[in-house]
């Protein structure tokens, strides 16, 4: 038993390493694609010298790679990580395979915030433009989670109650968003629609830095809590008997996941499917031990989003498709194929 278990652990670690290597390769390859042709070698060399000895680099190539391509690619990388980790943690915490980072209504809150900013010019900071849009979407995306926490604090609630509360709040925000949409011009409606389907074309290094902070902090905390998540998936009664307050842990997790997902959604709009599918695909290979599931979902989510973004850039070039469309086109068949192929019952 011991040998088999050790082999199983080594396999899981190798899978995580393979995902990380794939992440680095896809990142480099994605930076070669565009109107100016650079080899993967050129790209890695440019990145290396950019930090080590900037004088060695071709300024034009450095500008294309660092100012145009990498902000988008690196934001895709950290956003994919964030959505993958948040999805894995949300599914474990809710004990529900259908859960994703948006389960608690984050997307509907963010949509309302964005619609408010784009459609009515109302922002939480009082300033317009991208900063106003992003901050308003961020603040409103957290309101549904705050409502759920408030409802949960009134009495100890189950995971199912939290999901239902999230759905109720989501409907409310969707209704308010629709109300605003009915009163705005076609041009504004188009901008709201564009925002809502998820896109990486408008991101900058600032977006990357903000998402990176939330992703690194959130992933580190969730990784540290992974054994507690393992206890939580055995049920609330068992968790209590093992010394864990399931209710308090769920609220703490909800706050972390909400902040991670909100930091992504406010810059990129609603990129669906990554948070749902990445953890499930990883689970098919590694099982549900959150000690391995969380880091693997981070790397796999990053790969999935970067590949989707790459395809969205080249499939009908020079026009870009919103990445949210591609994530569904890639993720769905891949997921269905793996579900059909795998012999073990998973859920």
């Amino acid at each position: 038993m011991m040998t088999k278990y050790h082999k199983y652990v080594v396999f899981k670690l190798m899978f995580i390493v393979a995902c990380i290597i794939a992440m680095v390769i896809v990142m480099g390859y994605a930076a070669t694609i565009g109107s100016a042709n650079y080899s993967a070698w050129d790209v890695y060399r440019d990145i290396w010298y950019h930090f080590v000895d900037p004088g060695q680099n071709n300024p034009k190539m450095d500008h294309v790679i660092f100012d145009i391509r990498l902000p988008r690619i690196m934001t895709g990388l950290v956003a994919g990580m964030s959505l993958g980790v948040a999805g894995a943690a949300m599914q474990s915490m809710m004990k529900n395979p259908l859960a994703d980072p948006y389960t608690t209504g984050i997307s509907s809150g963010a949509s309302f915030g964005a619609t408010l900013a784009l459609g009515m010019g109302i922002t939480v900071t009082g300033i317009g433009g991208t900063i106003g849009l992003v901050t308003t979407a961020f603040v409103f995306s957290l309101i549904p989670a705050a409502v759920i926490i408030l409802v949960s604090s009134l009495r100890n609630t189950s995971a199912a109650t939290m999901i239902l509360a999230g759905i109720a709040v989501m409907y409310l925000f969707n209704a308010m968003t629709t109300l605003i949409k009915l009163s705005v011009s076609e041009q504004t409606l188009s901008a709201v629609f564009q925002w809502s389907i998820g896109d990486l074309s408008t991101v900058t290094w600032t977006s990357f830095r903000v998402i990176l902070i939330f992703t690194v902090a959130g992933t580190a905390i969730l990784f540290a809590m992974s054994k507690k998540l393992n206890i939580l998936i055995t049920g609330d009664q068992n968790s209590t008997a093992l010394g864990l307050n399931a209710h308090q842990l769920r609220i703490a997790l909800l706050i972390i996941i909400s902040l991670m997902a909100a930091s992504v959604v406010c810059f990129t709009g609603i990129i669906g499917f990554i948070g749902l599918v990445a953890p499930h695909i990883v689970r098919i290979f590694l099982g549900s031990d959150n000690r391995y599931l969380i880091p693997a979902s981070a790397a796999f989510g990053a790969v999935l989003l970067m590949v989707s973004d790459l395809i969205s850039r080249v499939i009908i070039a020079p026009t870009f498709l919103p990445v949210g469309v591609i994530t569904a086109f890639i993720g769905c068949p891949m997921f269905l194929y793996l579900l059909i192929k795998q012999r073990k019952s998973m859920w």
Partner: protein
Amino acid sequence: MPEIRLENIEFGYDPKIPVIKGISYTLDKPEFVCIMGPNGVGKSTLIHCLNKILKPTAGIVYLDGRDVQEMKLKELASHMGYVPASSQDSFPLTVVDTVMVGLQNDFKFGTNASDLQKVYDVLKLMKVEHLAMKNFNELSAGQHQKVMLARGLVRTPEIVLLDEPTSNLDIKHQIQVTKTLSELPRTKGMMVIMISHDINITAKYADRIILISDGKVFADGSPLEVLTKENIREVYDVDADVLEIDGRPHIILNDAIDDE
């Protein structure tokens, strides 16, 4: 061995309709205690009041003189193990990892050789070591119960609460598992508190039986003292004959008595 003392415990999901109506007893030595009684009399509810899954609406549960409601969950868990009646596990974990969860009261991150040895020993005790690397959700209901028992016992807690742990097992495995559990007070110094419906297996192995009826303790004592023809008739509405074999009762169930 810590002492568990219940003083006038009452509990009702609706406070106006109590399920438990003033239960008091004391357990203070390593023994195999079986809680029996018809469906819906509050057996599981009573166990859940012991380990803080539920809070009694009245009365106090003391563990070594301390109110368990005042104790931190982690501290209480270090004394008490628990095996629920059915699995709520929702995602696939291997049997090893599922049992390992039972060790995680100290929330260590890694898996060391000593942890793995503990898991292997308890799986062997339950005779399911061959399932070690299978996914928990691929097992039969009976195998689930054995793995959940392993998870509850892996830390060798001083007290372990078992909610119908053999309900999905065939008769051979019911006897095997109950016999193993009955030996734990002698071999490991544990207090084993088990809810059971199988009257003859309980009669054969229990050190003490607490018979619950209508939310109250109806009888408390050795199997011979508790499982009498009159008590079975009164509590279960069942006509039975009770024989004594090797100092233990053996019950022959004749018929259910009609409600009218």
